[in-house]
């Protein structure tokens, strides 16, 4: 009994230590030494720190401006809301800024949005840190997110992720050397029928060419193919990757409901 407890405690400690190590190594290598030590504070279940640390590509001196085309979109977005409730547009604006900025939000992009909607910057930071879809660190041109929620996990999402990481030679949330790919984790995206699945956010063509595609029914081999296709600049067919499946229908044709279903028992209405 006592030994069980002790073992359990040790396992917890080991787990914590391991996650700390993982976090520490997750830190992008071009950060200064002083920043690296903060890596250990980040938690395994959080995508990033809830703090801003100046880096060479993300600091208040790196300017951010919406392009004129996007400025039109900003105006369009804000026209949905009353003039004194412009802060309702924070999320769409963050999304727009993220697309324009190559998949992540720099500190100045958030400040710019705060300025546009007329709130204090901290109100924008709150939103950006709350939603895991907003990346506050640099991501690859193709940001690959693996679903890690139960159905996908049961259908092998761990293997998919491991394959991806091994194939790209990166850790989770790390960007490949060529800057093309990064792998992250997402919560359930509602494709449990076709689990396991990934999402590829494509920032290669700015806001206009932005796509956010699901790839479902993956196998380790198929996921590598998808990635390689992206690397070549192709657009692999999104949706289910199962050769015999159409959308979310059953593979290889129907297995049930082959004939006219038996009608429910019903009393003779005419007799009433």
């Amino acid at each position, binding site marked *: 009994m006592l030994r069980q407890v002790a073992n359990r405690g040790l396992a917890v400690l080991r787990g914590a230590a391991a996650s700390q190590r993982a976090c520490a190594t997750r830190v992008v290598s071009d950060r200064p030494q002083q920043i690296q030590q*903060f890596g250990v504070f980040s938690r395994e*279940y959080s995508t990033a720190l809830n703090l801003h640390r100046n880096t060479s590509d993300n600091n208040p001196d790196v300017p951010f401006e919406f392009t004129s085309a996007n400025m039109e979109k900003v105006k369009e977005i804000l026209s949905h809301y009353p003039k004194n409730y412009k802060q309702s547009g924070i999320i769409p604006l963050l999304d727009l800024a993220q697309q324009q900025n190559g998949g992540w939000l720099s500190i100045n992009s958030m400040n710019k949005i705060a300025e546009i909607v007329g709130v204090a910057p*901290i109100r924008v930071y*709150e939103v950006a*840190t709350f939603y895991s879809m907003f990346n506050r660190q640099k991501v690859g041109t193709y940001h690959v997110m693996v679903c890690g929620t139960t159905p996908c996990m049961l259908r092998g999402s761990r293997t998919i992720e491991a394959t991806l990481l091994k194939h790209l030679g990166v850790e989770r949330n790390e960007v490949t050397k060529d800057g093309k790919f990064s792998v992250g984790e997402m919560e359930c995206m509602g494709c449990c029928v076709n689990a396991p699945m990934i999402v590829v956010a494509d920032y290669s063509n700015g806001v206009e060419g932005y796509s956010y595609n699901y790839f479902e029914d993956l196998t380790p081999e198929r996921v590598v193919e998808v990635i390689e296709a992206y690397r070549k600049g192709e657009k692999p067919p999104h949706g289910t990757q199962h050769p015999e499946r159409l959308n979310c229908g059953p593979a290889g044709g129907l297995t049930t409901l082959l004939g006219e279903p038996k009608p429910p028992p019903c009393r003779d209405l005419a007799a009433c």
Partner: protein
Amino acid sequence: MAPRCRRYSLPLRRSSTGSAPRRLASPVVDSASICGAGSGVAAAEGSGSRGLHSGVAWYAGIRGQLYEGKGRGKDGSKQVSESYKWSSGMSLGGVRHARTASVAAVGAKFTANPEDCIEVSVDGSNVTIAKGMTVLQACEVAGIDIPRFCYHPRLSIAGNCRMCLVEVEKTPKPVASCALPAMPGMKIKTNTPLVKKAREGVMEFLLINHPLDCPICDQGGECDLQDQSMVYGSDRGRFIEAKRGVVDKNLGPLVKTVMTRCIQCTRCVRFASEIAGVQDLGVLGRGGAEEIGTYVEKLMVSELSGNVIDVCPVGALTAKPSAFTARSWELKSTESIDVSDAVGANIRIDSRGPEVMRILPRLNEEVNEEWISDKARFSYDGLKRQRLNEPMIRNSEGQLEPVSWAKALKTVAEAAHKVNPAEMAAIAGKLSDAESMMALKDLMNRLGCERLWVEGNGENADADLRSNYLVNTTIAGLEYTDACLLVGTELRHEAPLLNHRLRKAVRNSRAKVASIGPELDLHFKCEHLGNSSDALLSIAQGKHPFAQVLSKAKFPSIIVGSGVLQRSDKDAVLAAVQSIVQQANMIRDDWNGYNFLLLNAAQAAGLDLGFVPGARAPVGDKSSIKFLYLMGADDLTPEDIPADAFVVYQGHHGDRSAYRANVILPGVAYSEKEGTYENTEGRTQQTSPAVPTVGDARDDWKIVRALSEFAGVTLPYDTVNGVRARMLAVAPNLFRVDELEPATPLPKESLPESKTKLESLPFKKVVDNFYMTDAISRASKTMAQCTAAFSSS
């Protein structure tokens, strides 16, 4: 019924049935007594100096002799109908026609019309509450204390800690009482097993990530989480996973953060955005990773930032200057008054032995609610530095050397007699109490000197009508204004608590505020109309668009800063202000929107006591002064003081003027004396001594009294009650402690016309550095750190 401001259902005027003079003493005194020379206090001496048994009898006696005895009953109702102006209807406590449910233990009170009340049942007993109150407030009115973390009476409701769960009949689950409006007939249960179990569950979750560091936590002993875990906490946890750790934030030299202790109640976030008006703090991240922070490295720049320490229910935010110095249970607390500005915030001085360990705010809805400025809270370490602790005389070599009291006083008396009374002057400092000013005024008058003034008021102050130099709207009343013009004042630096009230008005009722004067971010929307008297003139002439805003407003107000007193065209500025007041109809029976904001604690009492130059005093040219008595006055530059003048410095800190002094008489600081102060709205309040004074220092009025004996003009009082009796003969309102004696404005026809012409001068800053304004804060290391940290922003 009295007219009411509908929105808040507060009467704006005292109802006509109940405002007979509040105190009526029985005997009518023989009123023909013309007091002889030097016996202005003859009436007081009779009972006052009896001393020993005098307690209440003395008070009653004085009252009986000086307060009239007529006007009770039939007369009373008549006189009120003829009451010729506004009386302090805005004071929150003086509300009539309100059903107040007051509970001894809680002291919770509310105001509402009887028809706006509903009845709910709390634990089986019925209570009447105002419509729209929450279940938690209903319980509070019933005298039941509901545990809570996120709910704070002065902040918006967040409803995220879930500690205040109660059971309401016919609801399937326990409900968060802070967020649920009470409905008529609701049956609330607060002590059922279900409630206890629910709260225990919440507590267990809260304690999951809360560290067990109470023994080294500064909040230990006065921690809401600690106290509530005594009732709802378990002695062991079921959580075996690793606890989380959170990076501490740097919020500046005042607030220490230990963010791992944070339970995410978000009170500090709400305080920062709703009260302080600095949008710096936020809730970052989500789920288990949620934390409070600033995201970017940023100090919290607010004059009220220290209050987040009080607001925090755990030890996540504690006071940096008093970190690890004392535990709450070893402190002796003394309820006193803050003197760092003219608002007179109610404070509690916590001391250990002879040392002040910290200062906390004390509830007073009418003055400071529950907030105090950072200067009030943290400048106490200045009380321990640079203290004058023995009398000193400048010897023949020009060195100051310690001497006995007798010798020092004798030297001063001799020097005073060597000069012509016309060449004498006395200045009372910013922190002087009314008693010492009274004594000094009497002494100087008896010596023939009429040249007296209080620092900040200047030599030309007009002390005639109280309504001309007070915040007539009252501090609490400023919340109800809907258009306000600031003239020559940096409100945020001059009176942070008043700024907060005005901010409330802007937030709650979208009041429009405009400012003429030095530009400063007041942390709310304020239109800056430039810094010159031209803008003032154009409003006064009705040309400026803001003049329309003011005249359209229901409760317009104007706040004139005391920097105006330093201007050469002071009268013209005030005349322009008067015409704005006139045009916007600011002075009505139910509202007085004219406010003059004083800067220092001593100013109002000084003006009330007539601590101003007498009719035939020489004014202006300082070079003729041969004998200068400085009672804690440090604002004079050495150039202002003639080289051949004999300077007496009586004070508690070796500040600027002490270096110039010929004689130094050590006095006591506000934490060491029982002194009367009047705040800028005219409310009389008293400090209580919390700690002993240092060295050989003496009460200020006692020093003056002793000096009078050496000078051969012995003052006729030798107890503090004696001085107060004398004050009663000069400014009787200073006798009404904790009360506000409203000042009645005179109609414009009764005011003399100004002959000076308005010059096109900018309004000057009066507060260069908020953190260092007086001798105490200038001696404080904490305030020096604040200056260094916040000066850039």
